[in-house]
Each structure stands twice: as C-alpha cells, then as structure tokens.
C-alpha cells in the first residue's frame, strides 16, 4: 500500500543506504523508508532523529522509490552525530512537514540559495524539470569558496545539458564570478522581460536582502522563501517555538515556505529569531 504522505507519527526508523561528502563539512545521505510512500513536495522537511543524540529539522533533497535524500551541514553536536553515521545505521524520521513551494507556470523560475538552503532547491529543480511544459530555470548559488558549493557537479551538468542556467559565484573567486549570488540575480532581473518568481532558501538575512531587491521589480510576480532557520521542537505546530511575530504563524505548519504577501506581514523576517528558550535574538 503506497501512502500519499508519511504520517506525522513517532520516528520511523530508516536504514542509511548511501552516504557521501557533498562539499565542505556537508554530507548527503540516502535513507531507505520502510514503507511505500509518495508525495513529499519540494520545500517540505522532516525531523531527523539520531538515536540517543538529537533531533532536528532537515530539508528533503529528493524522494524516489522510497529512498529519501538529505544533505546535512555541520553546525554543532547534532549534525556531527549524523556525520558519524555510516551506511547500515538507522536513523528516525518524522514528517513530511510543512507547506511546499508552489511554482506557477509560464514564468522564469529564479532559485537562489546558500548553505543547506540549497537542499530543498534541489528537489524543486527536479520537480520543475519534470513538468510537462518546458520551464526556464535559473539557479543562483554562492558560497565562501568553491568546496562549499552544494550540488556543484550536478548543477553544472544540468547547465551543460541546457536544463537550467546556473549562475555560480564565490566570495573568494575560487569558482564562478567573485561576489554574492544576488549580483547575478539583480543583473538578470534588469535584463529579463518575462514575469519571474524568486525561490530562496538560506540564511534569513540573505533572504531579506533578496526580498527587498525583488520588490523593486514588478516583473517579480511572487517570491517564495523558506524560513528554515528557526529552532523547532515538534515540527507540527504544537510547541510554537518556531512562531514568528506578529502573526503567530508557525514556520513548521504555516510555512516554512511563505510567499510575498505573507513575508510582508512577518516583522521578524530577517530581524529576529527565537532561541530554544523562547527568548528573542537579533539575527
């Protein structure tokens, strides 16, 4: 029996069937789901349990034939614990949580990401490529240096095959042009005449910058951004740890993807986050 989506239940134990170093301090894993499931959507996330260690939210890079791909960037003890896991080990997942990206048709799709934010964009790219209509996909990626660029080889190949246009840059110029991905984005926005939608996932301050930029261009008909940087406990709306002011939206349920209209209403966006205590901290 194939389930439409995973039940939001206690952690479902999955075997790690593949693991590789994706880029600097970042590993990708393939997890074998023990139940048949379809229906994870780009932008959704899971809660990843490393038994005896920690549990935290991570985005979904892909789901095919009950194999779920995730990409984990080292941040602290919890992500390190996952990096220590090997093929054959079990980890638990809960999900699928959150509202996905909802790409319209007949627009330029402008995807821009930083750090582990590129994880959900991977799945979005694959979904857009599978759509019946030929879509115009532009991916803007930047990192401090070359070995921190996620999915670099894969994105380059797609670029070479003409499936996407890949705009890549590094702070130190070790790959692509030197500078921030927003530079290429702005250039593109100045040139293009087609209505465009911006999809962003990464550090919130970067996304806020993009948001302010995008608003200057009426041809940007929507922006969809993943507020996947907030502390989360439950992932399904109960603890409210992930909520934003002043709307009280919970990122895990009402997000993590918010569109322009909603982002306008979130005064916290790019400014404050809440710690695990509930205290506010300037971003």
């Amino acid at each position, binding site marked *: 029996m194939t389930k439409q989506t995973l*039940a*939001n*239940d*206690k*952690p479902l*134990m999955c075997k790690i069937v593949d693991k590789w170093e994706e880029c600097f301090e970042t590993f990708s894993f393939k997890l074998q789901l023990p139940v048949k499931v379809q229906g994870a959507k780009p932008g959704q996330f899971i*809660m990843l*349990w490393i*038994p*005896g260690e*920690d*549990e*935290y939210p991570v985005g979904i890079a892909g789901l095919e034939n009950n194999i779920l791909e995730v990409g984990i960037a080292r941040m602290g003890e919890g992500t390190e614990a996952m990096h220590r896991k090997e093929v054959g080990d*079990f980890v*638990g997942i*809960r999900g699928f949580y959150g509202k996905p990206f909802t790409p319209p048709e007949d627009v330029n799709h402008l995807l821009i990401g930083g750090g582990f934010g590129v994880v959900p964009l991977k799945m979005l790219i694959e979904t857009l490529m599978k759509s019946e209509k030929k879509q115009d996909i532009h991916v803007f990626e930047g990192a401090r240096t070359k070995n921190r660029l996620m999915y670099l080889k894969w994105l380059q190949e797609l670029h070479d095959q003409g499936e996407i246009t890949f705009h890549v840059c590094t702070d130190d110029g070790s790959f692509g042009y030197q500078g921030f991905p927003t530079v290429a984005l702005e250039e593109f926005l100045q040139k293009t005449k087609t209505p465009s939608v911006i999809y962003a996932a990464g550090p919130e301050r970067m996304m806020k910058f993009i948001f302010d930029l995008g608003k200057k261009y009426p041809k940007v008909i929507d922006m969809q951004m993943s507020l996947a940087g907030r502390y989360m*406990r*439950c992932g*399904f*709306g*109960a*603890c*409210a*740890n992930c*909520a*934003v*002011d*002043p*709307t*009280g*939206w*919970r990122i895990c*349920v009402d997000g993590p993807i918010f569109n322009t209209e909603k982002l306008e209403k979130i005064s916290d966006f790019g400014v404050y986050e*809440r*710690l*695990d*205590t*509930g*205290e*506010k901290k300037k971003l």
Partner: protein
Amino acid sequence: MSLATKIGSLTLRNPMILASGVLGTSYSTLKRAYEAGLGAVVTKSIGINPSSGNTNPSIFALNEIRSVISSIGLANPGFQVFREDLEKLLESSVPTIVSIFGESMEEFKEVLNGLTDLPIQAFELNFSCSSSKKDRAQISTDPDLVFEIVKELRTNTTVPLWVKLTPNVSNIVEIASSAVRGGCDALVAVDTLKAMVIDIQTKQPILGNKRGGLSGAALKPVGIRSVYDLYEHFDEEIPIIGVGGIYRGEDIIEYLLAGATAVEIGTSLGVAYPENMVRFFQMKVKKYMEEHKFSSISEITGGAHK
C-alpha cells in the same frame, strides 16, 4: 443563549481556554489563539531563569491513540524576558492566565512577585511535570507542600490563583483539598500522564529525556474521571477547569457535564489550525445547547451528577 462562563470573579466570553505549553511561548501565538475565538489563554509555564528544556526529541505524535508524548522540560525564557511578550499581549486585551512553576517556594514567589502587577486574569500554578528527570517526590503529589505554597502565594497577590493537578496520584481529591484549603480560586485537572515510548529498532527511549507526558485523546477518560471525582467532592465550592484530550465540541460538553466550569485545550489546537478547530468547537457547543435547551454554560456544569 450565552457561551459566557464565570470562574470565580472572572467572566470569559466562552469556556474554551488555551492550555499551558501549547502555542504559548510568544505573545503572537497567544494572541492568534485568542483571536481564533477562545475565551482566554494560558501561557507556557514560566520560571525564574531562561531554560532550554530537554534535549530533542522532546515531542512527537502517537497517531494510533490520537495522542502526543512530550517532555519539553519547561523550556521558557524566564519571567523577566517573558514580561515583554506578556505586556504586548495585554495591550491587545487578551484575557491571560500566566502559568508559573518553581523548584521551591522561593522560586514560585519570585516569579509571582515579578508579574503580579500586570493586568492578568490569574496565575496557574504548575506543581508537576510528568517529563521531569526522576520519579523524585514532586510538589504536585505532596498534599502538605501544595497547601503551604498555595497559602504563602495567596498572601503575595490579589490575582486569582488556579492550581493545576496531576493525574499521577492515587487520590486527586486529597491534593485538591490541600490546594483549596491553601486558598486557591480554581482547580485545573489534568496535566499529562507519565509515559514513555521505546524504539525497538535502536532499543532507545525516543525522547531525549527518556520520560515524558502523555496528552491528547488517550487522556480524556482519565481527565473526565478526575473532574467528576472533584465535582462530586467539592460541588460548587470551587470552580473546576477540565483539561485533557479535547478534540471536539462533544468533548467540551463531556467535561462540563462531569463538573467543569470551563475547559483548557492543548494538543488538538497545536496539531491543527486553531482557527478551524475553535470554529468547530463553538458550532458544536451551540448546537448542543440549542438541542438540549440550555441557555448558559453554568446550567450544563455538573449535569452528569444528577
């Protein structure tokens, strides 16, 4: 027909109150919950210092029994920081009950004194926490401690004091009696049940804290019995607020009939859109009142004892 209900001197527009710990960390979610149509909100339990609570996993669902197990471990920003959120909330005139906890009388007093000047509706005293580390004696299960703390706090504030009761006792009426003698203004029953879930694949308790508290539908028959037992003993002597496993308007009625004057709702508001849930709750309660020709909530209270 009116949904208004009185809890001592306090009148609420309806008997539905947000339970502590769910949607209760920031002014914005509390405000959202109230605007969804509730009668009042209880904040997350607040202590003296900021605390990160327990290691994750600290909460997950148990769908098969429509329940949730959690051990947030009283994570909270501390009363001084929370005061800011509270002030914002009170600016919007949201009827607010502040849940407070402490490891000792001194801690309870410090938190209470630090917030008692605000125009809040009540303090809810949280003496228990099913997710606490050990099975060590807790205030909630010790009638003498409960009496002493309530009595002392009573002299420190004119704000109504509600006492939240744990179901993890052999005689809930005994603990409640201590609280009533101490001078509290309402009883809130019940908190979560002590519980645990072990993953058989990795042979580990799933919660970071190993132990947790069970909330949701599995708790309802326990909560109903607790409220029934309390009402049988206290009758109208003290208002009782029913909590545990409310997922439907019918569940609210069941608590009222058992003896509740109002109810608190946690898990079900946390796993859905509070706006939708509250609308359904209200529709059902109203429909029931019409069909059974009740014109006020107080007429329903205790109906199962007749």
